[in-house]
């Protein structure tokens, strides 16, 4: 229990870091660490069973290794290092992130959950992570940060999923992961196209494509 | 009662004899100051004799005005507001002798003295009044005299504008108070104030909101502070000291008195006051930091300190809603003590700022510099005031802020309840304290230290004794409260008792907040600093003093290269850019060898200049358009209006 709480706390701290940091490489790496940490959760919650091991291994491969590796390669290829001029500044997003996190902690107490879930940090962490992902998606311009936002969003959903993984067949989990992977592929292609077309990665330029 | 009434009349009418003197000689002014002093001493004596006795004084006379009676009542709560009032009125009257002598200001000297007396008397009356009509009368006399004090120099357009805004604001507030007393009336039967803790809270939300608006407008709580900066900057310094030190506190008095009438307090009242306090505190000090005009800056600090007072009141209100005696005692003692303290140190700061303005002839901080050498006493007084207003230990500001801090920490003892959110008052206070420190170190450092920035500042002279003595008195009062806070302990205890009734009977301030220790540490700190300072001073008595400051390798440093007030505050202001919206011109330097560059920055008021003025302008534009459309001179259309009106009236009023 103590260890899972520490992991979940680390997850939240990583959310804060990604919200407050401008360096893309560091963000990708730290989100990879987040994914790897989350991969430990199924085993710690449900013990070593086939289901949980598969889930953990899959999560580790996708979240911790493959997607971050692809993102790092993308960063190298388009040669950008920093998120410049986000739509909302770093400090305001960080403040918003903390406020929403604090809010989820207060909110989670009012949710009609079974008592086992009331105790731990699972539900608030999951909600906070989802919100952090949304915040990242809303406030940033660079396509890579947007992908990171999706990744963090999925991490949040994953924490919820861990709580339910007994009831949830493996197929659903895999489906979510696959969706994400496809999403990353698409984004990769889009990123490549944007950078080739406009020599920048700002998604705002895409609006020039209308009609 | 004779003493009280006599003193009241003396203070109120102190300026009248002057009306019969020649306007260009000093005949009336000394007499007015003497009358004010005697009046203050009389009232002081009345207060002392009242506290020796039962602690309360009550007289009611019949009055022919319907619903009204001349009900006077002196209780510890009023005494808390009266004490600083008397000190400030008396010191201000003496200060005015040299600051605004008739001989130099024949046009407005008599007017200033008349209204100075009137406003002081009206405020004393207001604090004693226990009847709605009497209260409103005193309130209105105070408001109108305040207007004439602000517009003392009515030949300046800026002063007239400030006065006009003040007049609008204060009457909007008074309107709310009229409604408030009308609503209070039916529940009690007469317009006399009901006894403390007797009104039911149900259905009184409107009363509270009206009170919050009306009294908050006078107190200058953040969104309602629009009149305050301009008014305090425009008035003569000793009048500003009175306005800022005492008049805005009548708003707080109204809120405290109003909330004391209710038997129980809904929790949202406390939260609202707390929130408004936090907003006023932080935004007030941030706006103050961005000012270049020393009196505007001090005025914004009044907004900040009203915020701190409101934080204390909010904590006390929450204590009543959640039945926490410790919160009530600490919050309200902090609130009341800060009322006293702010009156004292803000008056001290306004008076010493006045002495600087008198000597240099400018209100811009960036025109000063190096004044501590030329005005050693004024500088020391300002430093004392600055240390006190930042809430730093050996002086009085610390004691009251400390009580409010402890009040908010008490909320931690209630885990799981919503009350725990009140602990956020503590970090808010810390932020306010840090920003206030930055602001006052800026003012003191730029104005009094370094080299003179203008020739006027280089030729400044020390203020005469008649101006210094009031400042010294105020500083002594500040130091007194800082070093011996225990002397005010009984008064605060009784005042909290009158406000909250028997709930707090078991909790003594001393048990939850050991004031003795604070007093002891303040003494120790002062003693050690004085001793070590004397040692260093003695050891350095023969040191060479003719060298220039090291210019980091640059050979020809000039006075214009010194850090200015705007450059000092720039870093912090940019952090608060989201709420301040400073306007800047010319930050960038273009080219390799730029010849002449100017930089100017200006921070307009966040509410008045950013919201209200544009909103009213849009409103008047809309009305003008509507009028042009309705009222366009075509007879046929007017006839149509008549027909439509008749039809509407017929359909509405035929059964």
């Amino acid at each position, binding site marked *: 229990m103590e260890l899972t709480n520490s992991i979940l706390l680390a997850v939240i701290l990583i959310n804060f870091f990604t919200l407050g940091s401008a360096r893309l490489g560091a963000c990708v790496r730290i989100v990879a660490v987040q994914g790897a940490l989350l991969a430990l959760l199924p085993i710690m919650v449900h013990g070593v069973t086939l289901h949980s091991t598969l889930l953990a291994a899959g999560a580790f491969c996708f979240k911790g290794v493959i997607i971050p590796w692809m993102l790092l390669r993308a960063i190298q290829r388009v040669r950008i290092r920093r998120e410049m001029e986000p739509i909302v500044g770093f400090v305001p997003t*960080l403040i918003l992130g903390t406020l929403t996190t604090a809010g989820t902690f207060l909110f989670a107490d009012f949710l009609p959950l079974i008592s086992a879930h009331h105790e731990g940090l699972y539900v608030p962490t999951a909600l906070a992570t989802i919100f952090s992902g949304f915040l990242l998606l809303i406030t940033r311009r660079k396509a890579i940060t947007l992908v990171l936002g999706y990744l963090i969003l999925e991490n949040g959903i994953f924490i919820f999923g861990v709580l339910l993984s007994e009831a949830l067949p493996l197929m659903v989990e895999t489906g979510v992961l696959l969706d994400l992977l496809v999403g990353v592929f698409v984004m990769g292609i889009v990123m490549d196209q944007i950078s080739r077309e406009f020599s920048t990665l700002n998604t705002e330029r895409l609006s020039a494509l209308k009609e | 009662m004779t003493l009280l009434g006599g003193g009241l009349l003396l203070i109120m009418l102190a300026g009248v004899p002057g009306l019969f003197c020649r306007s260009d000689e000093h005949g009336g002014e000394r007499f007015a100051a003497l009358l004010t002093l005697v009046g203050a001493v009389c009232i002081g004596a009345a207060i002392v004799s009242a506290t020796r006795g039962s602690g309360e004084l009550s007289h009611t006379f019949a009055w022919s005005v319907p619903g009204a009676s001349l009900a006077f009542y002196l209780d510890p709560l009023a005494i808390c507001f009266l004490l600083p009032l008397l000190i400030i009125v008396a010191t201000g009257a003496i200060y005015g002798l040299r600051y605004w002598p008739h001989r130099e200001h024949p046009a407005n000297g008599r007017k200033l003295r008349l209204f100075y007396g009137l406003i002081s008397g009206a405020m004393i009356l207001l604090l004693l009044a226990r009847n709605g009509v009497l209260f409103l009368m005193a309130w209105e006399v105070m408001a109108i005299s305040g207007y004439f004090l602000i517009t003392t120099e009515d030949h300046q357009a800026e002063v007239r504008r400030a006065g006009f805004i003040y007049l609008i604001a204060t009457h909007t507030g008074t309107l709310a108070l009229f409604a408030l007393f009308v609503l209070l009336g039916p529940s009690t039967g007469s317009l006399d104030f009901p006894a403390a803790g007797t009104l039911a809270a149900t259905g009184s939300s409107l009363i509270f909101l009206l009170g919050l608006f009306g009294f908050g407008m006078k107190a200058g709580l953040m969104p309602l502070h629009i009149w305050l900066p301009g008014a305090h900057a425009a008035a003569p310094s000793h009048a500003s000291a009175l306005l800022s030190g005492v008049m805005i506190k009548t708003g707080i008095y109204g809120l405290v008195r109003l909330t004391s009438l209710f038997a129980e307090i809904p929790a949202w009242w406390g939260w609202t006051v707390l929130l408004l306090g936090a907003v006023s505190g932080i935004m007030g000090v941030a706006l103050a930091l961005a000012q270049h005009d020393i009196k505007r800056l001090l005025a914004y600090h009044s907004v900040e300190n009203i915020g701190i007072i409101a934080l204390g009141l909010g904590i006390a209100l929450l204590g009543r809603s959640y039945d926490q005696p410790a919160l009530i005692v600490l919050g309200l003692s902090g609130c009341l003590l800060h009322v006293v303290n702010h009156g004292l140190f803000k008056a001290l700061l306004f008076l010493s700022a006045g002495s600087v303005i008198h000597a240099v002839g400018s209100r811009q901080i960036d025109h000063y510099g190096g004044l501590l050498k030329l005005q050693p006493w004024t500088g020391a007084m300002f430093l004392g005031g600055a240390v006190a207003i930042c809430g730093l*230990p050996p002086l009085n500001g610390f004691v009251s*802020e400390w009580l409010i801090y402890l009040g908010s920490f008490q909320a931690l003892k209630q*885990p799981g309840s919503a009350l725990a959110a009140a602990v956020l008052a503590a970090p808010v206070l810390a932020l306010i304290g840090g920003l206030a420190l*930055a602001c006052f170190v800026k003012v003191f450092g730029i104005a009094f230290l370094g080299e003179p920035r203008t020739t006027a500042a280089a030729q400044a002279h020390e203020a005469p004794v008649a101006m210094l003595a009031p400042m010294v008195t105020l500083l002594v009062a500040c130091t007194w409260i800082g070093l011996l806070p225990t002397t005010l302990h009984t008064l605060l205890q009784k005042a909290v008792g009158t406000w909250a009734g028997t709930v707090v009977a078991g909790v003594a301030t001393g048990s939850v907040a050991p004031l003795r220790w604070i007093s002891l540490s303040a003494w120790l700190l002062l003693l050690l600093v004085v001793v070590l300072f004397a040692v*260093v001073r003695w050891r350095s008595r023969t040191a060479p003093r003719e060298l220039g400051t090291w210019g*980091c390798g640059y050979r020809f440093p000039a006075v214009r290269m010194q850090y200015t007030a705007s450059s000092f505050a720039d870093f912090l202001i940019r952090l608060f850019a989201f709420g301040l919206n400073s306007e800047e011109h010319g930050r960038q330097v273009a080219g390799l060898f730029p010849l002449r560059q100017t930089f100017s920055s200006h921070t307009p008021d966040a509410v008045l200049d950013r919201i209200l003025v544009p909103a009213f302008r849009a409103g008047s534009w809309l009305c003008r358009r509507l009028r042009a459309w309705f009222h366009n001179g075509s007879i046929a259309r007017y006839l149509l209006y008549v027909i439509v009106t008749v039809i509407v009236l017929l359909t509405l009023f035929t059964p």
Partner: protein
Amino acid sequence: MLGSLVLHLVLLLVFAPLWLGIIIKAKALFGGRVGAPLLQPYYDLARLWRKGFVFSRTTTWVFLAGPVVGLLVPLLASLLIPFGGIDAPVSFEGDLILFVYLFALARFFTVASALDTGSSFEGMGAAREVTFSCLAEPTVLFALLVLARLADGLSLNQLFGDHLGQAWQGGAGASLGLILVCLFVVLLVENSRIPFDDPTTHLELTMVHEVMALDHSGPLLGMILYGAALKMMVMSALLVRLAVPWQTGWWLTDAGLFLAGLVGVSLLVGIIESTMARLRMPRIPQVLIGTSLLSIFALVLVLR
């Protein structure tokens, strides 16, 4: 009471400059040098105290007040805090606020004495100093709130009492860890260490704290340096107590444990100074706001 007062003052006054020596030594070792002897700060202080005074003609008595208050404040503040297992000699309900505000007083006079010289470099340092400490102040208060939530009373002695041992193992461990990090950042900021400030740089434009003392020389500079050392020790003492909340009951072992903890903090500071670059100036407020937010989060965790 008197015994513990003497012990406190002796520990503080004797050992304070040593930690600076350890930091400098650690940095030298990381740089592959032998470095100055451990006791170098003591020699420096003795040398400075013997020198004479030199004043700029711009300065006034405020110039002296900065070092005086800066030296006395940490001395008084140290009486309010426990040194490891040794209880504070002076302790009363609400002394935590006094502790915070004493340092604010020192800051006021340090900054005023910097502005007294009229030099724009010192003005620059002064402006930065007030800005950063403004932002650090809420963090300290949030940390104190977390500790006050776990303790029974509102004195620093109770806040840093031996209940912290159980609190670490109980549910509050995460919060305590967070505020430990936050307070460490505050320690680095307030004591002008890398990555926030570089006391050894030769460029006045980039300094924060040191640039304010540019015109102070001789005994005044000595008082500033000594005061800074005392302040560092006082703040590290809180960290040590927070991180190692055990006490043996015998004052000698307690003092030993405490000093060992302080060696640890100094080494940590030295390692950070050797391995990190200093932050760009606009980043510092962001980091400080970040730590405030972390401490808010810690408070939410314990209030839940």
